[in-house]
C-alpha cells in the first residue's frame, strides 16, 4: 500500500510538471499527427484491400515510435535536473519509481492513441473496423501500450542512469517489444476483419502484458542500481579497463 502511495505521489508530481508546459503531450502528439500525415500521403492511394493489411502496421509502428520519443524525454527530464540520482537516494521504493514513470509514459501514449486511432479511421476507410468495435479497440490499444511501456520503462531507466548513449534505446527496445507488437498486429487484423477470435487474442495479450510487467518490475532495481555489492575484491573492477595493447 505504501509503495502504491509513493508511486501515486511520484506520478502526480510528474503530471503536475507536465500540466505546467505540456511539453511531452504536445511533442508526442505533434509527432503522431506528422506520422499520420506521412502515412496518409504514402498509402491513401492504395486499394481499400491493402489498407486492411497496412492499418495494423501503421497503428503499432506509430505507437513504437512515439513510445521511444516519450520514454527518452521522461527520463531526460530527470537526468537534466539530476533528480534521478536524488530519487534513488531518497527512501522511495524502487518499484514505486518504476510504476510512476511507466504510468506517466502510459498516459502520454494513450493520449496520442486517442488522436491516432480516430485519425486512422478518418483517413482510411478500413479504419471503420475501429469504430464498429470501440470497446475492443480501446482494450487493444490499452493492452498494447501497457506491454510496450512495461518493457520500455525498464530499459529507458537503465540507460538514463548511464552516461549518455540514449540512442541505444532504439537498438534495445524494438527487438524486445516486437513479440508484443506482433500479438498486437495479429489482434488488430482480427479486429478489422471482424474475426470473433479477437477476444482470445486480447486474452493472450493480457497474459503477455502480465509476464512482461512482472519481469520488468522484478528486474528494475537490479538494472537501475545493481545487485547488492560483494566484498571489495570483486567489486569496482568491471568499470576499469586495461588500455589497448600497442
Amino acid at each position, binding site marked *: 500500500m505504501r509503495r502504491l502511495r509513493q508511486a501515486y505521489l511520484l506520478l502526480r508530481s510528474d503530471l503536475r510538471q507536465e500540466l505546467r508546459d505540456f511539453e511531452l503531450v504536445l511533442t508526442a502528439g505533434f509527432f503522431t499527427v506528422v506520422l499520420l500525415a506521412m502515412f496518409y500521403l504514402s498509402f491513401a492511394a492504395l486499394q481499400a484491400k491493402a489498407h486492411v493489411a497496412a492499418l495494423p502496421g501503421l497503428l503499432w509502428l506509430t505507437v513504437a515510435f512515439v513510445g521511444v520519443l516519450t520514454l527518452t524525454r521522461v527520463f531526460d527530464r530527470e537526468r537534466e535536473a539530476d533528480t534521478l540520482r536524488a530519487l534513488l537516494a531518497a527512501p522511495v521504493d524502487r518499484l514505486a519509481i518504476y510504476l510512476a514513470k511507466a504510468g506517466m509514459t502510459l498516459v502520454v501514449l494513450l493520449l496520442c492513441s486517442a488522436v491516432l486511432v480516430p485519425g486512422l479511421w478518418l483517413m482510411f476507410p478500413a479504419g471503420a473496423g475501429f469504430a464498429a468495435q470501440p470497446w475492443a479497440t480501446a482494450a487493444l490499444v490499452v493492452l498494447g501500450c501497457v506491454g510496450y511501456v512495461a518493457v520500455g520503462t525498464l530499459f529507458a531507466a537503465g540507460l538514463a542512469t548511464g552516461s549518455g548513449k540514449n540512442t541505444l534505446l532504439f537498438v534495445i527496445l524494438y527487438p524486445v517489444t516486437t513479440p508484443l507488437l506482433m500479438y498486437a498486429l495479429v489482434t488488430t487484423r482480427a479486429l478489422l476483419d471482424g474475426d470473433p477470435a479477437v477476444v482470445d487474442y486480447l486474452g493472450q495479450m493480457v497474459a503477455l502484458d502480465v509476464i512482461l510487467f512482472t519481469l520488468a518490475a522484478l*528486474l528494475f532495481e537490479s538494472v537501475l542500481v545493481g545487485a547488492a555489492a560483494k566484498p571489495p575484491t570483486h567489486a569496482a573492477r*568491471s568499470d576499469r579497463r586495461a588500455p589497448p595493447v600497442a
Partner: protein
Amino acid sequence: MRRLLPELCLIAAMPLLVYSVQRVFLHTPNERTMGTAFKIFFFHVPMGWLIMIMAVICGIAAGVQLRRRSRRAGCVALAASELGFVTGLGVLLTGPIWGHATWGTPWTGDARQVSTALLWLILVAYLLLRHYGPRTSERLASALAIFGAVNVPIIYYAVKVWKTMHPSNEVVGKLPPEMRASFWPCLLALVLVALGLFAVRIRQLYLADELDEAWVRSQDRAA
C-alpha cells in the same frame, strides 16, 4: 581431462560432421514432394534448436550475473550470445533457401520465421550493448538477455498459436526411420561443435578478464 573437454568435443565433431554430410547427401533418400531441398532440414533444425538453447543459456547466465555480479556468468552469457548469433545466422540463411524450394518464396512473414529473426535481433542488440554500451550497460544487457530467453517459448509455440505454414514442432518424430537415422548424427555433430566453441570462447573471455584484472592490480601497485 576437464580442461581438454572443449578440444575433445571439436576433435570428435570433425569426423562426425564429415560422416553426417556424406550420409545426408549420399545415403538418405529424397523427400517425395520437396526433393533435394529437404536435405537442408538436417542442418537447419539442429541450428534452430541451438539458437534457442543458447538464448536460454544466455538469459540464465545473465540473470546470475545481474543477481550475483558474477564475472564468470558474464563470460558465459557473452559466449552464448555469440554462438546464438552464429547459429541464428545459419537458421536465417538456410530457412529461406528451403522456403524458396518448398513454398516458392524465401520469406512468407510466417510467425516462426519472424519470431526467430526477432530472437536473433535481440542477441545482436545484446552484443551491441555489451560492446558499445555505456558504463552500466552490462546490467542493461543482462535484462535484455533475460527478455530474449522469455522470447524462446513464444517462438516454440508460435507455430501452434498463429497457425503458420512452418512445419510443426513434432516433425522430427514423424520422419521416416532412414531419415531420422541421418538426423541424429547431424544433430550430435553440430551440438559437439557448438559445445566445443562455447567452452573455448568462455575460457578466452575469462582469460581476457583476468588479464584486465592483472593489469589493474599492477597499476594499483605502481601507484
